[in-house]
C-alpha cells in the first residue's frame, strides 16, 4: 500500500500521501553523513590552511576550501532530496578530495588517514552500493599508494595489502547489511500491502473513525454499504447509526463504546441510515485502536449487515408456524377419530375405516417430520450420500406408480429405451422425485397430467418433472429453491407445505454433483430439470480412490521440513 488516508481531527482535512517508505532510513543516514562531512571538511580546510606555508600541493588545498567546503554544505542541505546514488557519488568525490588534501598535508600520518578513510568508504558502499564502494575504495587506495610513494615509500606492502583486504571485507559486510535491510523492507512492504488488500477486500464493512467522530478510512464493503467514500465526513452523517429510536452520538468519542462502557463493544444491534440509502439493520462491534501517529485514539467499526439474518429469522418463524399447522391438522384428525372409535356402539366397518384414516394421517405426520429432519441435516452439513452407479428408470417408475396411487393423479413416465446409469444414491433420487412430483401435484389442477421424462446427453442424464399448474414469475423462479420460501405465503394454508421441499431437492442434487434448473411462466406450468453425471463416461467412476497427483518430492525440501525450516509454497 503506497497510499494511505490521513485526516486531521479539527478541520476534517483528508490528504492522501505516501506511507512511511523504505527510504526513510537511507535519507536519515545520508543527512547525518552529509552534516558530519561538513565538519570534517571544515576541520581539514582549517588544518591545511594552518600548514599552508609547508604545503607541496596548494592547488588541492584551494580546491578543498573553495569547492569541497561549499559542495559539502550544499550536499548537507539537499541530501534528503537527492537520489541515493547521486548523494553517494557526490559525497564520495568530496571524501576523495579530503583524503588527498589530508595525505599531501600530513604524509607522515598516511596509515591513520587511510584507516579513517574506511569510514567514508563504508558510507559510500551503503548509500551507493557495492560498485560505488569498490570505486571509492579503489580511488582512495590509489591516492594513498601514490602519496606514500611520492613521500618516500612510508606505506609498506603488508600495510597496503591489509588495507585492501579490510576494504573488501568492509564492502562485503556493508553490502550484506544493506541486502538484509532491503529484504526486511521488502517484507515490510509486502505485509503492509497484504494487510491493505485484506482490509480492502474484507466481506464485512469496516470503518475507522477518529476521536472526534469523523470517518478516516473504510474498506470496499463499507463504501458499498454507505454508497460513497465517506472519508472526512462526520460519523453521524455517513452512518447515522440508531439503536432503537436513539441516535448514536459520536462527537465526543464513540457513542457505541460509551453505551457498552468498555473499550470493546462486542456486538451491538443497530440500524444504519446511510445518506441516500434505505436503512440497513447491522450488528456493530467497535474496538479502540491506537491512532496513526501512535497517540491519538481511533475506533475500528465492523458493521455486519444482518438483513438476511433478519429475513431468515422471519422465515424461520413463519416455518415454525407452518410446520406446527401441518402437524396439527393430521393430529386433530387422529384425535377426532380416536374419540370416535372409543364409542362402544360404533359399527365395526366404521371402526376399520377410522383406523385406516388414522394410519394414513400418522404416515403423513412421519413424512413431515422426516422432511424437517432431512432439512436440518442438510443445514448442519451432516448429509452424507454414498454415491454409486444407479439405474434411474426403475426408481422413477417406482416413485411415479407410488405417488399416482397415493394422490390419485395422472402421472406419466417417459424414458428412453436404453438409459445409461448415473452416479447417485437410490434413496436420494427417490426423495428428489417424491418432492418434485408432490410439488407438481400441489400446484396444478387435479385433472392435469404430470409428466416425468428421463433423457440422456453425452455427459449426463436428465430427469424432468413437468406440470400444467400455476407456474411462477422469473423472480419467484429465482427464489423457489430458497429455504422456507413459497411463491405465495397465503397459499400455505391452501396447498400446505413448509417451504423446504425444493430446498431439499436442490441440496440433494448438488450433493450428487448435479444441477437443477426450473423453466416456468405464470399460467404455463413449471418444468424442473435435474442433470446428473452419467456413470459410464464419468472420470470419477472409481469412487473412494484418490486421483490427486502425487506431489513432486524433493529430498532437499523434505529434509528442510524435517529439521524445522518453514516451507512456504507459492506458485507463479
Amino acid at each position, binding site marked *: 500500500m503506497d497510499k494511505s488516508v490521513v485526516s486531521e481531527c479539527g478541520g476534517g482535512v483528508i490528504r492522501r500521501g505516501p506511507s512511511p517508505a523504505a527510504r526513510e532510513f537511507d535519507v536519515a543516514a545520508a543527512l547525518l553523513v552529509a552534516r558530519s562531512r561538513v565538519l570534517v571538511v571544515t576541520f581539514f580546510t582549517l588544518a591545511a590552511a594552518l600548514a599552508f606555508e609547508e604545503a607541496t600541493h596548494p592547488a588541492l588545498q584551494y580546491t578543498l576550501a573553495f569547492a569541497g567546503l561549499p559542495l559539502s554544505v550544499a550536499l548537507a542541505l539537499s541530501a534528503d532530496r537527492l537520489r541515493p546514488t547521486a548523494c553517494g557519488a557526490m559525497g564520495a568525490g568530496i571524501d576523495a578530495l579530503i583524503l588527498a588534501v589530508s595525505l599531501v598535508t600530513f604524509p607522515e600520518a598516511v596509515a591513520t588517514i587511510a584507516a579513517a578513510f574506511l569510514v567514508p568508504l563504508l558510507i559510500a558502499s551503503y548509500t551507493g552500493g557495492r560498485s560505488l564502494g569498490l570505486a571509492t575504495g579503489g580511488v582512495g587506495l590509489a591516492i594513498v599508494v601514490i602519496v606514500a610513494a611520492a613521500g618516500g615509500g612510508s606505506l609498506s606492502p603488508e600495510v597496503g595489502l591489509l588495507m585492501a583486504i579490510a576494504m573488501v571485507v568492509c564492502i562485503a559486510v556493508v553490502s550484506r547489511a544493506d541486502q538484509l535491510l532491503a*529484504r526486511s523492507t521488502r517484507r515490510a512492504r509486502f505485509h503492509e500491502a497484504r494487510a491493505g488488500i485484506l482490509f480492502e477486500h474484507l466481506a464485512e464493512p469496516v470503518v475507522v473513525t477518529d476521536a472526534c467522530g469523523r470517518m478516516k478510512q473504510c474498506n470496499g464493503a463499507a463504501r458499498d454499504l454507505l454508497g460513497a467514500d465517506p472519508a472526512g465526513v462526520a460519523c453521524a452523517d455517513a452512518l447515522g447509526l440508531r439503536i432503537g429510536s436513539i441516535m448514536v452520538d459520536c462527537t465526543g468519542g464513540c457513542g457505541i463504546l460509551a453505551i457498552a462502557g468498555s473499550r470493546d463493544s462486542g456486538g451491538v444491534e443497530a440500524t444504519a441510515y446511510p445518506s441516500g440509502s434505505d436503512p440497513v439493520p447491522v450488528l456493530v462491534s467497535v474496538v479502540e485502536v491506537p491512532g496513526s501517529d501512535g497517540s491519538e485514539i481511533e475506533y475500528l467499526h465492523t458493521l455486519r449487515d444482518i438483513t438476511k439474518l433478519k429475513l431468515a429469522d422471519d422465515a424461520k418463524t413463519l416455518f415454525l408456524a407452518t410446520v406446527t399447522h401441518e402437524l396439527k391438522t393430521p393430529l386433530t384428525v387422529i384425535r377426532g377419530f380416536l374419540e370416535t372409535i372409543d364409542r362402544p356402539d360404533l359399527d365395526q366397518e366404521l371402526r376399520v375405516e377410522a383406523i385406516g384414516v388414522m394410519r394414513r394421517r400418522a404416515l403423513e405426520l412421519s413424512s413431515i417430520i422426516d422432511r424437517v429432519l432431512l432439512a436440518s441435516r442438510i443445514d448442519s452439513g451432516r448429509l452424507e450420500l454414498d454415491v454409486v452407479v444407479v439405474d434411474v428408470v426403475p426408481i422413477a417408475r417406482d416413485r411415479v406408480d407410488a405417488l399416482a396411487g397415493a394422490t390419485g393423479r395422472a402421472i406419466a413416465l417417459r424414458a428412453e429405451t436404453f438409459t445409461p446409469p448415473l452416479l447417485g444414491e437410490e434413496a436420494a433420487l427417490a426423495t428428489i422425485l417424491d418432492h418434485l412430483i408432490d410439488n407438481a401435484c400441489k400446484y396444478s389442477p387435479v385433472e392435469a397430467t404430470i409428466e416425468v421424462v428421463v433423457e440422456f446427453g453425452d455427459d449426463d442424464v436428465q430427469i424432468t418433472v413437468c406440470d400444467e399448474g400455476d407456474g411462477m414469475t422469473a423472480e419467484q423462479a429465482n427464489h423457489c429453491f430458497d429455504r422456507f420460501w413459497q411463491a405465495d405465503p397465503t397459499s400455505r394454508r391452501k396447498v400446505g407445505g413448509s417451504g423446504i421441499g425444493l430446498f431439499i431437492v436442490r441440496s440433494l442434487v448438488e450433493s450428487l454433483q448435479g444441477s437443477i434448473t426450473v423453466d416456468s411462466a405464470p399460467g404455463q406450468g413449471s418444468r424442473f430439470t435435474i442433470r446428473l453425471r452419467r456413470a459410464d463416461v464419468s472420470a470419477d467412476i472409481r469412487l473412494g480412490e484418490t486421483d490427486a497427483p*502425487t506431489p513432486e*518430492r524433493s529430498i*532437499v525440501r523434505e529434509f528442510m521440513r*524435517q*529439521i524445522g525450516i518453514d*516451507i*512456504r509454497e*507459492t506458485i507463479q
Partner: protein
Amino acid sequence: MTVTLAILSITLGLVYTSYGIMTIVDMARGWRRYGFSHFGMAWIAMAFTCGPHHLEHGLHLLSGNRPAGPLELVAVIVGFPAGVIWFLLRVEAMSGGRGDRVLADSFRPVRWLPYLFGVYGGGFLVATVGVLVRFEQFPPMVASNLTLVVLYGLIGWYLLRTQLKTHRASGAWSLSGIALTIVFPTCALMHAAWAAYQVAGRYEADVHTVIIDWFAVPAAAYFLWVFRGLYAGTVRDWNEATDRTEREPALV
C-alpha cells in the same frame, strides 16, 4: 579393531558420498522449478568432504598405513547407526516415501537418549584428555581438525535446539532429525579424537587427510551459514521458493 573401523568407515564414506550424488540429482531436478539452493549446495559440499574423509580413513586403515585408535572406533560405532538410518530415510524420501518416522514421547529409547549421549560425550572427552596428557607436538595440520570440531559442534547444537523446539510444539520426535543431531556431534568428537591422537604422536597426518579436512572447513562453514540463515530468514532457499514451472490445467 582396525578391520572393524575400516569397514565402518568405508561404509559411512559410501553412504555420505551417495547422499551427495542424490542431492545433486535432486538439485538438478528442482533447478528449473525452484532455482539454486544454498541448502542443497551446502549438503553436496558436506557430503563430498565427509564421504571421501571416511573413505580415506577406511582405506588407509585397510592398507595398514596407520593404527586404529579406540576413541575413533567408539565415535564411528556411535555415529554409524545414526548415519545409516538417516541415509536410508533420505533414500525413502527420494523414492516418494515419508522419509521420516514420528517417535512418540512414550517411546522409551528416546527418553534414555540424552542420558546415554551425555555419558558417551563426557566419557569421550575424559578419554581425549587422557590421550592429550601424552603431549608430544602441536602440528599445524591439527588446526583443520580443531576448526571442524567447533563447526560440527555448532551445527549439532543448532540441530539439537531445533529438535527440542519442534518437540515442544508437536509433542513428538522426528527420527530423521534425531539421527542427524547425533551424527554431527559424533563427527565433532571424531575429529577431536583425531586431533588428540595427532598431538600425542599416535597418528601422523598424511597429505590426503589434510587436503580433505581443509576442504571440509569451508564446506562446514558454508553449511553453518546456510543453516543459521534459513532459521533467521536471511537466506532465501527452496523453502520459500516460487514454483516457476507452468502448471497444466487440471483435467477435472
